[in-house]
């Protein structure tokens, strides 16, 4: 700590941090609580919900009605597949932009980011038609490709910022020692950028896991990931909060656990280069 803080100050900051953390976590916590209540109890006032008896009936019903395993596998394949694919394209691209910038590199980066500013529904029909013609509708390959393209700008941007923090002299030294371009990227740059690459990877797996527009529009049953699984429990008629919460809990649990175990890596990667 650079500055001295009084115990009161520290207590205030701690309480504030915990409160904000709790506030952000509250919707997820409430979903988990609702998932263990009966449908009739789930719609009562919050205090009545908390005092109602606990039950796993919703989980049993969701298990009986849906094939969770198939949706889960689709989610894993699509999110990991698209992230790996994006990294393969983005690492060389970010290397070029960070170490061999041209006159238009900044414009190029902005242009890439600008594709994220367009509402996805704007290109729904063209993509749908292409998918139809290539026979990619409701396939995991099709969805993996779309997710790669959607997340590519973010992956390139993140990697570009990390690479810029690496002194180019080190790469030069490698070149002096006779390393080829491929070897330079693979053996020198990549190991140094591991925290950055890891956090990019994690963030993109999370983004792809949660993506709910394309995954719902381009799949029907065979390639439908967990987002489609959650969507199938929303209803215009009848009570469904408890079952929907159970489905949501089951869908977010894997990614939540992954995030929990890798949070150190994630935070280090995200703040990488922020403090000098």
């Amino acid at each position, binding site marked *: 700590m650079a500055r001295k803080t009084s115990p009161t100050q520290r207590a205030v900051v701690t309480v504030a941090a915990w409160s904000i953390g709790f506030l952000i976590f509250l919707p997820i916590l409430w979903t988990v609580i609702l998932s263990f209540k009966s449908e*009739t109890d789930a719609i009562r006032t919050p205090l009545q919900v908390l005092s109602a008896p606990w039950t796993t009936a919703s989980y049993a019903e969701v298990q009986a009605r849906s094939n969770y395993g198939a949706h889960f596998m689709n989610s894993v394949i699509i999110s990991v597949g698209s992230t790996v694919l994006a990294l393969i394209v983005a690492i060389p691209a970010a290397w070029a932009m960070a170490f061999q910038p041209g006159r238009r590199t900044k414009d190029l980066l902005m242009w890439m980011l600008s594709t994220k500013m367009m509402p996805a529904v704007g290109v729904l029909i063209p993509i749908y038609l292409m998918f139809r013609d290539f026979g990619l509708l409701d396939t995991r390959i099709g969805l993996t490709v779309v997710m790669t393209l959607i997340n590519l700008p973010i992956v390139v941007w993140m990697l570009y910022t990390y690479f810029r923090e690496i002194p180019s002299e080190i790469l030069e030294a490698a070149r002096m020692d006779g390393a080829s371009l491929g070897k330079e990227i693979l053996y020198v740059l990549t190991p140094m950028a591991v925290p950055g690459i890891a956090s990019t990877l994690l963030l993109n797996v999370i983004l792809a896991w949660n993506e709910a527009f394309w995954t719902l529009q381009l799949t029907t*049953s*065979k390639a*439908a990931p967990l987002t*489609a699984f959650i969507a*199938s429990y929303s209803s*215009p008629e*009848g009570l469904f909060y408890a079952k929907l919460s159970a489905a949501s809990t089951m869908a977010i649990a894997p990614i939540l656990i992954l995030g929990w175990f890798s949070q150190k890596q994630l935070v280090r990667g995200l703040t990488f280069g922020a403090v000098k």
Partner: protein
Amino acid sequence: MKLKTALLAATAIALTGAAQAEELTIATVNNGDMIIMQKLAPEWEKATGHKINWVILEENVLRQRVTTDIATKGGQFDIMTVGSYEAPIWGKQGWLMPLDDLGEDYDYGDLIPSVAAGLSADGKLVAAPFYAESSFTMYRKDLFEAAGLTMPEQPTYDQIGEFAEKLTDKSKEQYGICLRGKPGWGENMAFLGTLVNTHGGQWFDMNWQPQIDSQPWQQAITYYVDLMTKYGPPGAVSNGFNENQALFQTGKCAIWIDATSAAGRVYDPKQSEVADKIAFAPAPQAVTPAGSAWFWAWSLAIPSSSTKADVAKSFIAWATSKDYVKLVGENEGWVAVPPGTRLSTYALPEYQEAAPFAATVLASIEAADPAKPTKDPVPYTGIQYVTIPEFQGIGTVVGQQISAALAGQTSVEAALKAAQDYAAREMTRAGYPK
């Protein structure tokens, strides 16, 4: 020679195999009756050897998803669940296959005529009714008795207002009336459409001019806002069908006017705390009976892009047949059979016994005529909706304005003026008023 024979045999096996076992993709919504269909479908799969892939989506997502697929001829769905709003519009576009050849034993004459008419385009059935609903009045007979009140056989909205006043006791969290307040063309506007109709109003006149700032609309909406503010539950603007069902089932409402499909649920002691204390009456009326109760049918249709029409027809014929009704009755209990589609369902003694509300429901559905929804003639069909593609957008904006009036953010007059202006602008843009 040997190779040729083997090849021929292999081809023959492949061909018959393909004809025998098809995979159908069925898109549907997560409603109780559909869940039962999903549960019983293995019976059809076993009997025919075909396989079904289910796609279950939330109603609005489903509508968008399916529209994209039909419009681009993506061919991802073989059967889809459509409502009575889309069926005639999509049928007219040529997006749905006619279903007039579902087999000799299908018994078309047994379908409730108004239901079949609502699902036809150019005189041909384009969607087979799976279950249909109208709207009616549900009330607590114990509270009525305790207050010395009697629900007339055909209540009026004035009477409903009087009852609601007498049955409201806010100290006990007991509210005289529960009505939809959540904005949306299928939410508050479903109920309000019927309220306006029975006050003699209409969405458009014969020249497609919006009539939202007309006298009947003013009267109906003023009545609604006044009634709900005085005798309705707090926060009514966020109450849709589900929220009101929850309030009614937990004994918070004395009167609830909503879908007849709620009957089976509020009558089910497993779900409802007031199951043995409720009674039913037709939807209230004001100056005209026309359009006082709504009409909605969830139905099964085959998009014209499907390549497996024959197999799809065989499933639809099964799922909307008399035998299916019996299958549900025997497996899931008679109160759970899909209501409002076939006259024969209402003749079943088991159903009459299990569902004492059946006669009221049938009468409501038979009386609800989407072809004559209003007192004065109109250029459209549909009671609580107008079967033009522009209606979803207009209905939802009007619903938001009225919801704002209910919340006290604006006056009824200002809300209807804004709604009228919006509707007029949208209709002009779409090229309607002549």
